[in-house]
């Protein structure tokens, strides 16, 4: 299995060994962070509804790997993965889940509203689709700035049903804004499958009718996502290339919200999960590394994770009198 997988992912030539290690580290960090969140969750220390990305890590990791530090991303309430993939502060993220003053939104956001403006991670939103036009607006500012920076906007398959997605595509294409739209298509919105929501699967075809190049990755392959993201973003940096679109099919391994699996609840079968587990990108990338290197990365991740949860636990809650801070900006 290891050999077959290695053959499968190593076909992309421009991936250097150092890239592989760093991609693996990000994938693994996200996976382990969310597993820890799931483990801790029953203790009620995390006072926020959590939407885990376990199984979907490869999308933001693949995309963010070709972004510059001063590029921008927008995320959703299922934003842990993108936040970490773009380099968001781990301590501040866990502290935010705990509702602490040291959280990335100082305990005022919660899990669904992660933000790290130092890493150019725009805040997540709990209302589906709302961050898409905001990302486009940020891209408008970047186009005016003219420094070749781009925005990658992450959102789910459900978000494409909201009218604002179409309005955003049209406007971004009309003004040729430097934004890469990334649809994380996990086939479900909560428990509702695509069949009950989409009249057809021709999402990429539809996006192309706006004059936007569109690609689909059907297997969650992180290196393929990375390659296409790189291809898509190249022209955007010139100021002349318009937006681009990537549909990445992936699978959400856990329940929609909360720490557990939900294959017994009736809306989907575990058999759907299995092919995705077979091509688990975290494991497959790890398999490409030497055992020692991998173990080193794994150990380092465990230690930053432990430190992050420790940080969150020991941080203070915002105090009641601070309720009125930041209602208005001064």
């Amino acid at each position, binding site marked *: 299995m290891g050999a077959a997988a290695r053959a499968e992912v190593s076909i992309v030539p421009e991936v250097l060994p150092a890239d592989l290690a760093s991609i693996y580290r990000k994938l693994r960090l996200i996976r382990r962070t969310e597993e820890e969140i799931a483990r801790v969750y029953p203790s009620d220390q995390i006072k926020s509804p959590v939407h885990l990305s376990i199984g979907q890590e490869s999308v933001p990791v693949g995309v963010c790997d070709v972004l510059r530090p001063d590029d921008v991303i927008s995320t959703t309430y299922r934003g842990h993965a993108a936040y970490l993939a773009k380099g968001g502060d781990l301590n501040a993220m866990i502290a935010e889940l705990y509702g602490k003053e040291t959280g990335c939104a100082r305990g005022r956001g919660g899990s669904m*509203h992660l933000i790290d403006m130092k890493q150019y991670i725009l805040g997540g939103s*709990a209302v589906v689709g709302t961050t898409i036009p905001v990302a486009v607006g940020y891209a408008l500012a970047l186009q005016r700035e003219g420094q070749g920076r781009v925005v990658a906007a992450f959102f789910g398959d*459900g978000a494409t049903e909201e*009218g604002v997605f179409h309005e955003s595509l049209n406007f971004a294409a009309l003004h040729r804004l430097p934004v890469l739209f990334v649809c994380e298509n996990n086939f479900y919105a909560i428990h509702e499958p695509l069949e009950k929501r989409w009249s057809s699967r021709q999402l990429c075809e539809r996006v192309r009718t706006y004059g936007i190049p569109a690609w689909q990755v059907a297997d969650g392959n992180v290196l393929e996502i990375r390659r296409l993201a790189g291809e898509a973003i190249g022209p955007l940096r010139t100021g002349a290339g318009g937006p681009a679109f990537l549909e990445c099919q992936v699978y959400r391994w856990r329940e929609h919200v909360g720490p557990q699996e939900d294959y017994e609840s009736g809306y989907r079968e575990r058999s759907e999960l299995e092919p995705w587990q077979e091509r688990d990108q975290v494991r497959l990338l790890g398999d490409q590394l030497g055992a020692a290197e991998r173990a080193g990365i794994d150990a380092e991740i465990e230690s930053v994770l432990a430190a992050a949860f420790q940080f969150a636990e020991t941080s203070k*809650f915002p105090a009641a*009198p601070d309720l009125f801070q930041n209602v208005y900006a001064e």
Partner: protein
Amino acid sequence: MSTPNSPRLLHYVDALREAVSQEMERDARVFVFGLDVDDHRGIQGSTLGLQEEFGAKRVFTTPLSEDAMTGVAIGAAMAGLRPIHVHIRMDFLMLAMNQLINIAAKAHYMYGGAVKVPLVVRSMIGKSWGQGAQHSQGLYGMFMHVPGLKVVAPSNAYDAKGCMIAAIRDDNPVIFVEHRLLYPTEAYVPEELFAVPSGRARRCAKGNDITLVGISNMVLECLRAHELVAEAGVQAEVIDPIWLAPLDIDTIIESVNRTGRLLVADNAWTNCGASAEILARVSESPKTLRGVQMARLGFAATTCPPSPLLEQEYYPNPARIAAQIHQMVRPGETGWTPDAARAALAYQLQFRGPF
């Protein structure tokens, strides 16, 4: 004040479902749709089983398209059907405002009476566990602002059933406001069909010292506060308006004229909210005796924070309501607060509507 004809206790969530089910049984024009109404969670249970009972043509989920789905509901209603459109959070109604405000509210008037829009829009106010900024809003004040809409916010299972039946039978768009924390509460609810029609508030507790108006979940908080101040010998009258538009202000004024004091506790921001309207109506009414003392409590004038200490501070609670009552009734004895242990215990009090 209605008296239950039945000794049956029912949860709020089941009362909602029962009302819808019985009306669907009675009237083939009624249908239920909205995101996730047909999944195994069934909108926290309130739509559970309906699809099995009535089939996928009458109970179905939708794409994530609140704007168009609201238009669809309106169009179906104009054609003679009676849609119930369900949203799991009230916050999402902001996507439906154009259809609700510019079409649903106005169609009957603007088209000279040629069409009716018998539409029920259900939505739930979230609270606690870090629901946060966008899953916690009680935005019904916006709907109360607009002629042509009715707004109802039942606080107990009895009213949940009766108001739902009234809403379904109403030929106008009704914004049906639910509160997540009310779902598990119980009340005596008749098995038969009955309506709690618009235009009648209900006195839930008697008292002569102050008139307390609670809205939605705040009715329960007011009843708890009523208990807390009773310890200090203060008799608070508690009124549940039930329907916010049209609003039965007379019942409130009658009480205020007796108590001389009015405190409104709302499940929403106070600014231009239901509490503002109630104070304004009482203030301007020629029926109101002069010199009434008034106050409002509602969400703090901030965005809702998920962090626990902040969140506690954000919401009115029985202790804070009680302290406010005491301050108004006994202004001399400053700084009274209910015993902390008792205030905490207030949450274990069971209030079984209809009050």
